[in-house]
Each structure stands twice: as C-alpha cells, then as structure tokens.
C-alpha cells in the first residue's frame, strides 16, 4: 500500500486520474476504522491533508463556499449564524475529537444515508463542487446521493467544496440516537423556512437508501402557510396541520429495520421531529430569536 501526498489540488487530481485504487483521506474518521479493522486494503491512500484548496470557507454576497476539508468544529464555531442547520448537524457529529478531524467532504465522499451533513445540504439547495483533470463541475445536492454509499462523484473526481446560500430564515436540524453524543443517526431531519419564496423545505436522513427531500410534505405546508397568509398576517398553524405535515414526512421515508432501530420507529420518530422542528421554526420566524434542538 502506498501513501500518496500531493501538495496541491492539481497534483491530487492527476494522481486521482492515474491511480483508481487510491482512496482519498482527510479527517480519516471513517476510513481509518476500515483500515484498523482490516475491512479493506486499498492500493494507496491519497492524503488530502495538505491541500490548501480544501481549507476554510468564504462568503460571496449571499453564497457561502465551505471547503470540503473544513472540520465540523470550525463550522460550529464560525458558521452557526449563516448556516444554522449545517452548524446544528455538525454539532451532533461524534465527539470533540471527531469534530476536530471530520469534514463535510468526508460525509459526502462516504455518502452514507446516515451522514449528518446531508439533510442540511438538501434543505439549503446546496451544490457540491467537484473537480477532476477533465475540469470542475457543480452537482446539486438533490442529485448527488444515488444509493446506499453511492454518489454522483465520478471515479476520477475529488470533492472540493460545498456552495450554499446563507440562511434567509429559520432552520432546524434534529437527530434521534441512543444518547446525546457519539451516535450515528437512527433518523435525522432538517427543515428550512425561506421567507423570500415563502416556501418550506424539509429533508430526512438515515431513513431511506439516500438522504432525501420530502416533496409532498413541503408542498403541503407551503400551501397551508399561503392559505393562512401566515407569512404576512401570522395566522397560527393548527396542530392537525402540523400532524399532517409530520405524517407526510414519515411517508417520504423508506426505512429498514437494522441494529439502530426499526423501520416503524423511524417513521414515527420522523413525524415527531418534523412537527417539532416546524413548530420551533414557525415560532422563531414570528417571534424572532432562535431556538435550538
């Protein structure tokens, strides 16, 4: 096994094209477990740890570009106001030690349905910037996830950054696990209110082969808010409406029974998370201020 240590993105992309057996590593929080337990033995490790191009984040107007190698800890510390759902999700990843190493780029590269960053990226209409020796392209988050641990990333591409708009309205992320820290999601959910378009966006994680948006539920609550002139007048949204919203989110899931929970439990929990996060977000928009999962 080789350890390949490119000094810049161009060199990394050249290696990526030449060595299909090389597996990219940055934080290592997924990949090193595989190696430690001898579950896989790639031909080479492609260390992305020295690529400045993946570092940091910047803001251009309303759009924020998060480098694929930015550790979760820095998202929590620096982007909680601009990207509330992603920051809340980052806050639930592993432990402080894991958050100091793990990255959104790694979450995307693994494309596990349980990755915490995915639902926030989906409700933010994020796009994923990827590059190869053939050039760069942007993949909408809604098209990135293609199956369990399968993504639209081509074999010669590397994930460079994520682009997403700064939040224009309330956002929430909620996750169910067996305890508060160090858990892989049994199920998770992100919700965003967009005052500019007067739309609701909601996405679920760890309850289908891929993280996914819940289109029916979005249409339903968006229409209910419009009917009530909620955005301008603020007519309260009734409990039955919120319950219906929760039921539609649960219906968008396609969960399985596994070691972390049953399919039935996941559907039920998603309905609760949807109702709860909607309640918090609607209240936050009307009252200002912020509540946090």
């Amino acid at each position, binding site marked *: 096994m080789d350890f390949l240590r490119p000094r810049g993105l161009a060199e990394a992309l050249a290696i990526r094209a030449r060595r299909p057996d090389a597996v990219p*590593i940055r934080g*290592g929080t997924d990949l090193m*477990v595989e190696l430690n*337990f001898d579950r896989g033995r790639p031909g080479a490790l492609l*260390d992305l740890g020295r690529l400045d191009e993946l570092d940091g984040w910047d803001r251009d107007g309303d759009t924020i570009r998060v480098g694929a190698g930015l550790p979760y*800890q820095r998202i929590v510390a620096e982007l909680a106001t601009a990207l509330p759902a992603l920051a809340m999700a980052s806050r639930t990843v592993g432990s402080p030690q894991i958050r100091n*190493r793990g990255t959104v780029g790694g979450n995307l590269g693994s494309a596990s349905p349980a990755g915490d960053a995915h639902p926030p990226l989906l409700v933010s209409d994020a796009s994923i910037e990827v590059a190869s020796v053939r050039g760069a392209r942007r993949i909408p988050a809604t098209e990135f996830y293609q199956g369990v641990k399968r993504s639209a990333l081509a074999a010669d591409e590397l994930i460079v950054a994520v682009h997403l708009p700064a939040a224009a309205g309330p956002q929430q992320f909620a996750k169910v696990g067996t305890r508060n820290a160090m858990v892989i999601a049994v199920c998770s959910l992100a919700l965003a209110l967009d005052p500019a378009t007067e739309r609701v966006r909601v996405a679920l994680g760890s309850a289908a082969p891929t993280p996914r948006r819940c289109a029916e539920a979005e249409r339903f609550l968006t229409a209910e808010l419009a009917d009530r002139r909620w955005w301008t007048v603020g007519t309260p949204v009734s409990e039955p409406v919120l319950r219906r919203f929760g039921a539609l989110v649960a219906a968008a899931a396609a969960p399985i029974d596994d070691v972390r929970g049953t399919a039935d439990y996941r559907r039920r929990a998603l309905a609760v998370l949807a109702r709860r996060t909607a309640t918090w977000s609607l209240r936050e928009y009307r009252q200002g201020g912020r509540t946090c999962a």
Partner: protein
Amino acid sequence: MTVNGTERVVDDVWAGESLLYVLRERAGLPGSKNACEQGECGSCTVYLDGAPVCACLVAAGQAAGRQVRTVEGLCDGDALDVVQQAFLAAGAVQCGFCTPGLIVAAHDLLARNPAPDDATIREALSGNLCRCTGYEKILDAVRLAAARRAGREVAR
C-alpha cells in the same frame, strides 16, 4: 514529526498504520492507549497541531511535519500538569486506562474555557469512555483543576 517538542524520525512505517501505533510501538510513548480503534473511546486522545484528536484515526503519514503532543508531554520534567495532579487528588483514576485520554481532553477544555460549567465539562469529555464508570470523580477532578488553575492565575 515533532512529538512533545522533539523532532522524531520513525522508519519502516506502513502506509495504513495509525499515528497511535507509531507513538506506542515506534516512538516508545505508551501513554496514549489503544482500545476501540474506531474513535469511540477517546483513550488515544493526543493533540495534533494543537487540537485534540483520536490518534487511532490519523494515518501515520498525515502526522509527518506536524506537531504532536501526548499525555507524556503535558508535564514539565517530573512536575505533573495541574490537570494530572487534580486527577490524582480527586481519586479520578481507577484502572487508569482511560486516564491519559481524559487528561488530554480536560487539558484542552481548560485551555479554551478556564471556568467551564458541568454541562460544558460533560460535553468536552463526551468522546472519552471510562469502563470503571468513575465519571463523578473525573468531573470532580476537572472542577478541581479549573479551581487550581484560577488560583494560580490569581497568585501571579
């Protein structure tokens, strides 16, 4: 890489081995412990470029040219760090296996937040497991270390 302030060169490193293996088996620093090998238990916690990480999840090659500080590097000669002393004084050490990782995590917490509340302490130590379940005394030790650090600052 630089370990506890000293430049170290290690040979014959396999590309897939961890920083933890290098520290324990090649650099003669067995303070960081090897247990879960999946980032769950925190017993291998070390500073990498100033941030606490699980050494078992860092590929050895990724540490090349970086600064590593292990539990052995917290003391000043024979003088233990205030966090180490507090763990002894509070009886926060039972079998001792989780102690090095907890001490590095607590050391980092107090460097960032000299007066943490209990929820903050629990959160900061959430990635470190103690199978003896001596958590109450571990919390006592962190509170004691915080108080002693504060006293030392005042004394200056």
